[in-house]
């Protein structure tokens, strides 16, 4: 996982800008993947991703490295933005299992791959929203367990336990769809 650092608030603004730029470039696609997985709406995901980076940029001088890693801080902002969007739309969060249609996967991957991924996508939809969010943070955004724990406001062991349970349920759901 690529590490970025955000300069402390007491540093020069120039350094803070550079640090934020590094964070942006390393996390842009991950944030989008997580938000798109949460919203199941590509257009809304783009809006929320842009809004999340804008919020983070405005708050970049208030980031305190002692309270966590920059990526966790950024994903916390993105999560709040995504949940606010869901609240605004007045619908329950539906963690997307199919932001990318498995049927549009590369043809050279073969029918077996496509069918298996379609099964995974369907199984994802059967999970609880919170469990799907865990999987999105882990495998769509690529966060480590300690970062997930920071985003969700829980301990790393608790996040790991929940993730393990979610993966177990996902595997069982995949078996059920086979």
């Amino acid at each position: 996982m690529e590490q970025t650092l955000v300069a402390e608030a007491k540093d020069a603004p120039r350094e803070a800008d550079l640090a934020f730029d590094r964070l942006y470039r390393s996390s842009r696609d991950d944030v989008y993947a997580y938000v798109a997985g949460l919203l199941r709406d590509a257009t809304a995901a783009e809006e929320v991703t842009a809004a999340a980076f804008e919020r983070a940029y405005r708050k970049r001088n208030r980031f305190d490295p002692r309270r966590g890693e920059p990526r966790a801080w950024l994903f916390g902002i993105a999560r709040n933005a995504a949940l606010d969007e869901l609240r605004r739309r007045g619908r329950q969060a539906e963690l997307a299992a199919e932001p990318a249609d498995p049927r549009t996967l590369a043809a050279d991957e073969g029918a077996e791959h496509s069918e298996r991924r379609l099964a995974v996508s369907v199984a994802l939809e059967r999970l609880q929203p919170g469990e799907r969010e865990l999987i999105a943070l882990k495998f769509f955004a690529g966060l480590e367990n300690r970062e997930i724990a920071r985003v969700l406001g829980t301990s790393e062991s608790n996040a790991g336990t929940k993730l393990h349970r979610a993966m177990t349920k996902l595997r069982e759901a995949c078996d059920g769809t086979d």
Partner: protein
Amino acid sequence: MEPTRDDQLIADLQALRPTPRPQFTAELDARAAAGFPRRSWLPQTLPSLPPLRLLIPAGGAAAILLAIVFALSTGGGSDSNAPEQQGSSSGLLSQVEKVPDHAVPEPSASAGEASAAGEASGAAAEVESSVPAAPERTLASKAPAAVPFHHRDVERSAEITLAADPKDVDDDAARVFEAVHANNGIVMRSSTQEGRPGEAGATFDLLIPSAKLDDAMAAFSDIDAVRSRHEATADITAPTVASAELLKESRARIDSLLAQLEAAETEEEQEAIEAELRHERRHAGRLATQLSHLHKRADYSRVSLRIETGGKESSDGGGAWGIDDALDDAGHVLTVAAAVTLIALAVLAPIALIALLAWLGHRAWVRRERRRVLS
């Protein structure tokens, strides 16, 4: 080596990872390069709202300013009562203070009260020549037009208290005499007491020509540190004019009686006229005395001067501003600043508490709603 089922599942999940459109990433990169210009929901013509961290100090400054204005206005109201209370203690004048020359307050003595005056003096003629006659109806009605505007009879009085060290009381008393004589004043009564601080002191009852009252007060203020000073004025034009008018009428009546006396033919008629003449002359005498008394009240100002010892206002500098005065002033400034701060806090604290509670409530509500979204 065959991949495990978990590895396969993870690979499938990663393959399902959403990817952004290239156009979107290009636009976002451009916005990032530009420093994420704000996409306000407000019309672009409206100025952007200042950040909260600017609004909070601005609101605090406004509240403090309001508190200062409130404190000053409240303080001014309480101060305005003090001179009246002091003026009433002198027992010299009415509560009317600093009456402008063009104003016409209610007279402190009516024409009828003039009849209670003592013996007559020769001042009546002088007043008659200096005070224009006014119609009797206007005197009785006390209307503003009753008294001519170009001349006012104003009675003035003053009280001043000086702070001195016990060893300086005699010297200060001597300087009071000098100041009185220099301003052609009269020492009605004086008393000097020696002793320890708080016991030693002096009191003076003075009559100072009204025209020189300001000079005299300035001279008294230079003698030692001024602990308190109070001046009052009362317009006595109305009773003066009324007395002069009545005196004029009485003298005309006397002249008329004298003419009747010369023309009287019988002894009984002469005796009756003489009796009426004696009565009228006594009446004229009382009016003249009253007029003279009023005239003296306008010409001379009563001044009550006290020299006190003890208390923090007493200074060795003999009125000069020194370290003690500076400390006193600094303490006063700090006291006022503390009072203003206290008032500001009293205003701000409830507002801040309400704002804090509202903010905490909103934050808790938002967090709960966010949790509900995923539940």
